[in-house]
Each structure stands twice: as C-alpha cells, then as structure tokens.
C-alpha cells in the first residue's frame, strides 16, 4: 500500500540513510567478529583475567596498570591492531564513524543552507575525533 503513495523525501535524507545502512553493517562485523574471537581466546592484547582485575578502576588507571599505557588518542589500539581486542575497539571506532560518513554522503546531495549546516556538523565531528591531538584535557 505504502508504495502507492509517493512521498517527497529530500535526496540528502535518502543518501544519509543508505550510507548509514551499509557502513553500519560493515562496522558491526568488525566489532563483533573480532570481539568474539577475543572472547574465545584468539590473539589477545589484554588478558581477560587481568581485565577483570582492573575493570572496577577508572579507564586511565586500568590502562596504566594493565599495559603501562596512558591513552590520550587512538595509538593504544591502532598500534596493536593485529590483536583481536584492539581490532574490536577499532570496530567500535568504525561504528562511531558511521554518522560522519553518512553526513559526507548527505553533504553532496544537500542544497543551500543545509550544505553549510552539514559542514559545521562535520567540523564538530572532526573536532571530537582529533580533540586528543588538538587539546590536552586534565586527568592524565
């Protein structure tokens, strides 16, 4: 029935939706595939027994005592991406990147003011991603 009624949906809306759909499933495969491999003991960077020992502490304490690292960026998992847990964290990063990729797709279909607004959104998103390299926040 719904097909009989053609709605006027802006092109940027459709582009945003289509890109989000594809990018999400690809990211989810990386996140869960590597995550399950890690849970089943394949090529682990962090030993689950040690993780269970420190998971009650703050994130900075955890990484310092578990691996001697002080994360303030993405090097802590990107440098060890051949390990399944780090690949799974990379999968989380991919999921978090999906809305940004969808915005890029929408940008090319947007017109007028929306091109500008989407550009601002993309700039904010890039700031969130590169914040650790732009500014250092207290706490570590």
């Amino acid at each position, binding site marked *: 029935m719904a097909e009989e009624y053609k709605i006027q949906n802006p092109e940027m809306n459709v582009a945003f*939706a289509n890109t*989000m759909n594809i990018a999400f499933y690809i990211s989810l495969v990386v996140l869960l595939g590597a995550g399950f491999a890690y*849970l089943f003991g394949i090529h682990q960077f962090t030993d689950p027994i040690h993780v269970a020992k420190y998971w009650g502490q703050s994130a900075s304490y955890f990484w310092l005592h578990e691996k001697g*690292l002080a994360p303030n960026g993405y090097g802590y998992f990107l440098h060890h991406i051949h390990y399944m847990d780090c690949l799974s964290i990379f999968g989380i990063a991919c999921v978090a*990147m*999906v*809305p940004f990729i969808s915005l890029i797709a929408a940008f090319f279909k947007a017109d007028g003011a929306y091109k500008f607004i989407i550009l601002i959104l993309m700039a904010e*998103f890039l700031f969130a991603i590169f914040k650790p390299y732009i500014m250092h926040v207290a706490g570590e």
Partner: protein
Amino acid sequence: MKEANNPKKTKLKTTLRVIGVILLVCLAIAELAWAKNVASSSELAKGDPWWMWPAILFVFTFTIGLIAPVSGVGGGVLFVPITTAFFPFSVDFIRGTGLVMAMCSAISSTPTLAKKGLASLKVMAPVVVVSMAFSIIGGIVGLWITNAFPSGKYYIDIALGIILWFIFYVMLTSKKVEFPEVTHIDNFSRKLEMKGEWYEPNLGEVVEYHTTRFFAGLPTFAFVGFIAGMFGLGAGWANVPVLNLIMGAPIKVATSTSMMIITLNDAAAAWVYLSKGAMLPLIVVPSVVGISIGARIGAKLAVKAKPKVVRYLVMAIMLGAGILDVIKGLGGLHIIPKIL
C-alpha cells in the same frame, strides 16, 4: 480529548498511577537491593571465572532489549544507572558502553525511518549543531571528573541518580500530541524549510508537517547533549517531548528524528571515551549482542504486551536505580554509612 471531558475520572486515574508507581518503586528497590547483595558477594569471591560478569551482562542487556521497545524507554537510560549500581565495572567503561549501545540501536533504526520520511535531516541538522557540541563537552567533563578527582566517580554516581529522578519526572508528566497544530512558523524554521511528509498507514494518506519555535528548543537540546555525553545516555526521553511539544513535530516524527539526533550526539561523545580508553570489548561485545537480540524479540512482544504497565514498571526501576546510585555515591563520599 475524552479525558478532558471527565476530570474526575482523569484525577482518579492519575492518583492510581502515582500509587502504582510508588508500590512498584518499593518492589524495585527491594529487588535491586537483593541483587546488589548477590553481586557484592560474587565480587569478593576469588575463584570466579573472568567470563562470569560478561555472561551476566549479556543476560541483563538481553532483558533490557526485551523491555525497551515495549516500554518506549531507550536501552542506554536503563543500562547505565543499573549497571553502575550493580556491576563491578568502573563508571567510565559503563558510560562508554552505554554510548555504544545507544548509538548501535539508533543507527540500526534510523535508515528505515529516514527513508519513510519520519526521521528528517532537515529537522535534525540545525538542532544537532548545538547538541553535538554540548555532548562533546559533556564527554570531556564526565571523564575529567572521574580521572582528576579521587572521589570523582562518587560525584558521577550522585549526579546520575539525580538525573534519573529528573527523567522519571519528565516521563511521568510529559504528554504526547499525535498531530500538534502549528499555527505560526518562525522565520528561521521557514527559511530552512524544516518540514517533511510521510505516509501514515492508519490514515491511509500522506501527512505533511512543519516544525516551529526552533530557538525555544535549542537550550533544551544543549542540555540534553551535555547529559548524553556526560553520562553515556541516549536522551530520547528529552528529545521527543521537545520536538513534539515545543517544536510541533508529530509524535512519530519526533520519536524517529530523536533517533537520528542520538546517532550524531552519541557518536561524537563516543570518540571522547574512545580516546581515553574507556571502552573494553569484554564489556561492549556482550552488551551490544544482548541488547540487539533482546530488542528484536522485544519489538515483536511490543505488539502483544500492555505498554503502560511495562512503562510504569521500567519507570519504577529507573527511580529505584536512581535512589541506589545516590546512596552509593553518598556512601562513597562518607556522607552516609556505606551500605552499597
């Protein structure tokens, strides 16, 4: 409209609802306190296998997934406070996982809603310019508090509890208007053409809408963005009433566009948590799988279940978890004896 014609009946219904909620709160607190004792004793046991808590987490998130679609409450709002109160994980990892869960469920539903015209980029984009900035700030502030102060996590517990009471109040008092009447459209909304249309099968026709009062909604979206980033919550509980009651979006559009807003707000905040190492696959993977499977079954149950009963039950659990979070935080700060 019918309720307005019979104020006595409405008053009686409201009273019964309040009594019901209070009873459910008592029940939920007793239930949660019992579970906490079990959790504490398990935490102390040295011989526990590492997979025990991820397995419990899977069952727990599966249950959340089941009841979330029936109750209309987002998974993150239930996950973060209850996990904070009962699981041995740091609040950093819980908030990080909460963001991933809210993000995954919003991203999986947004494409379908956007293609149907229910979730609109034209309504979402201008408000997210403000809310995303505040969600990034919220994420930075939230992690800064727990990492810079030795007692930071207890302040977060207390703040989370208070926020839950506020959410409870909003959910209890806010109304839904299926098709709000928009008589005047402000200049900004008109120039940006913050409008759209979708096919409504119940009416058998295409429904057009136009949102308004853009600037009146902005401060709320800023607040909501901050809360989402700071506590790892989805924040649909606040997005929907603002879009529906203030900006005049029909309820279906408000609910769907709120999902679209969550995708961007939570993804931006997730990067802040990711850069600080606040996401562990051991916690994230069972949670995402649990809530995804639960939500698929829950969506089917939603057709048969009585949403109001489940909704009040969930609200009672939220209120109970809020009370426990405050007690835990005050106990940690030694303001009251430590009982949790």
